[in-house]
């Protein structure tokens, strides 16, 4: 039992209060401490991924209580990949925030940021459903603080909507958990995976209800139509770097769906059968259409980026809904890609907004550094829309290829390809409005670049470099993900690791 698994959860939990208590008035000290912790966490998560890549499932029993009686943290390939992605994104966003001084605009940014990371790590590592709920709450509470960071009327109004929406989601989560516990008598995911197929006939309806409620909760987190309404306002009005960090929060919903609906309510379970797939697929198709239509219709760059985030969740959920190893491999690759692409887009939104004072799509004099930012914007747009040569193209290709033999493949292909075209149109329109047409406007010259160092540009460039690396290293990465999805559908390794071999036999 390696103690390193718990470090990503414990460390932010210790550092964040320390920041509030002792470094409250010293922004430089706060920056140093939080940057050091995030770099250290990146190191730890790299090491964890290295361990998990070997194929073993590492289990950490809290307080040395054996599962299913105690809480367990489980490190398998999927959770290792997710925590590594969180660390990388966290580091880049933190660099951007420090470079632009967003952390000066309100109090306790760094503490909230660390709590957010703690919630994310916890949700990805836990092997217990109630624990998943608690970590969801931890990351949501931190996100409420980050969302209204900096204040302002519209941000607060959007924040209230966001909080209320998520509170309703949390309540539904608890109802689902109570039903599951009432039926199966356990909340440990591995234990539930053992008990669910062996349930009495009369409990089938209850279990199905709970599975459906759980799916709705995860769909709220993943912004799946028809319960995606919280996302556009939240992401548009949140501080842009925070919105970039939020790119991973929707992925937590997707992660939870992958985890629960392969492990507990797997494709082989008679009670739920194809229910998850039947529900997710149509919703995901509509999500994709609405998202990309929003990209075309969004009146400002931030709104466009928000709808692009919705659209990418649509593609992701289409891949997830097939529940085959090939499709899940595609979903994993697309998940990593869309997290980084979405975050890049939001960082660029902030870069534009700082130079123009607004990111509304109207005609104004050219902005400072428009050449560099234009290059970044078009790279991010190419990645998001899924054109070659960046990772979005590979991601969509993998998704299309994996779904070729599924029923309804023609419809899925049509929707994915048509929406890609719509996204290309939307981004091209926005790009020409922001970067090309201004040169024909007789304005009062280029406004001066805002006073800041090169760090924001470097951070945004780093995100683009990650997208490039995702393309270049697609071979080894998909190799890792292939093993990951194979591990997901071979649930016995996971269950044995958590419960022990005798535990499995004892409950059967």
């Amino acid at each position: 039992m390696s103690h390193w698994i718990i470090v990503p959860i414990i460390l932010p939990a210790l550092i964040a209060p320390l920041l509030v208590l002792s470094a409250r008035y010293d922004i430089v000290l706060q920056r140093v401490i939080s940057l050091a912790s995030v770099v250290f966490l990146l190191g730890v998560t790299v090491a964890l991924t290295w361990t998990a890549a070997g194929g073993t499932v590492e289990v950490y029993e809290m307080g040395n209580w054996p599962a299913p009686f105690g809480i367990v943290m489980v490190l398998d390939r999927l959770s290792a990949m997710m925590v590594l992605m969180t660390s990388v994104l966290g580091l880049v966003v933190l660099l951007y925030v420090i470079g632009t001084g967003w952390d000066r605009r309100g109090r306790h940014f760094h503490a909230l940021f660390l709590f957010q990371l703690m919630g994310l790590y916890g949700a990805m590592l836990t092997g217990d459903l109630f624990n998943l709920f608690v970590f969801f709450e931890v990351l949501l509470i931190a996100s409420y603080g980050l969302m209204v960071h900096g204040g302002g009327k519209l941000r607060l109004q959007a924040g209230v909507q966001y909080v209320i929406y998520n509170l309703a989601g949390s309540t539904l989560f608890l109802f689902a958990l109570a039903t599951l516990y009432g039926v199966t008598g356990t909340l440990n995911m591995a234990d539930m995976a053992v008990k669910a197929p062996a349930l009495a006939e009369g409990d089938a309806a209850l279990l199905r209800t709970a599975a459906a409620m759980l799916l709705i909760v995860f769909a709220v987190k993943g912004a799946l139509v028809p319960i995606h309404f919280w996302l556009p306002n939240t992401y548009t009005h949140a501080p842009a770097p925070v919105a970039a960090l939020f790119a991973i929060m929707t992925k937590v919903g997707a992660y939870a769906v992958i985890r629960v609906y392969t492990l507990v309510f797997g494709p082989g379970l008679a009670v739920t059968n194809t229910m998850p797939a039947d529900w997710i697929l149509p919703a995901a198709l509509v999500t994709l259409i609405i998202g990309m239509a929003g990209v075309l219709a969004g009146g400002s760059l931030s709104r466009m980026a928000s709808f692009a985030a919705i659209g990418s969740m649509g593609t992701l959920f289409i891949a997830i809904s097939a529940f085959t190893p090939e499709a899940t491999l595609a979903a994993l690759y697309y998940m990593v890609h869309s997290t980084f692409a979405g975050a890049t887009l939001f960082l660029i939104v902030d870069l534009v907004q700082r130079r123009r004072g607004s990111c509304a799509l109207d005609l104004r004099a050219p902005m400072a550094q428009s050449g560099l930012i234009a290059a970044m914007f078009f790279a991010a747009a190419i990645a998001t829309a899924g054109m070659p040569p960046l990772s979005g193209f590979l991601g969509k290709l993998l998704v299309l290829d994996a779904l070729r033999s599924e029923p309804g493949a023609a419809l899925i292909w049509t929707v994915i390809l048509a929406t890609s075209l719509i996204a290309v149109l939307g981004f091209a329109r926005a790009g020409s409005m922001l970067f090309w047409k201004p040169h024909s406007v007789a304005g009062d010259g280029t406004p001066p670049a805002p006073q800041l160092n090169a760090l924001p540009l470097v951070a945004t460039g780093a995100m683009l470099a990650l997208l490039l690396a995702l393309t270049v290293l697609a071979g080894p990465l998909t190799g890792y993900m292939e093993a990951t999805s194979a591990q997901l559908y071979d649930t016995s390794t996971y269950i044995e690791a958590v419960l022990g071999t005798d535990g499995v036999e004892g409950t059967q």
Partner: protein
Amino acid sequence: MELLVASGVGLLTAAGVYLMLRLRTFPVILGLSLLAYAVNLFLFASGRLVVNQPPVLLNEGPYTDPLPQALALTAIVIAFGMTALVVIMALASFVRAGTDEVDMETETPVAHEAANDTPTGDAT
């Protein structure tokens, strides 16, 4: 007793959902609280309804399932904190916007970007 608890949960949920669908923050927050009560009761009942039994193992005797009690406790704490937070945020939003309506009246991107760019040091 089962009927009583079940109808209690049902009534609280119904009232909570109704209030949540209103357009002003005050009823919405009340509705959220009612939903939280309903879910706490429901969690508590998920370990089967047992009367007069301790939730700890005392020698041999019968006992009630202790886990739902721990779950309900956690849920109560979280719901309580969340209610406090949403009250504060609703108040701040009310003071700033001058209205306690939940939906946002206009969606003019230009106006809000301007609001975003004024560095204000308050809130959170």
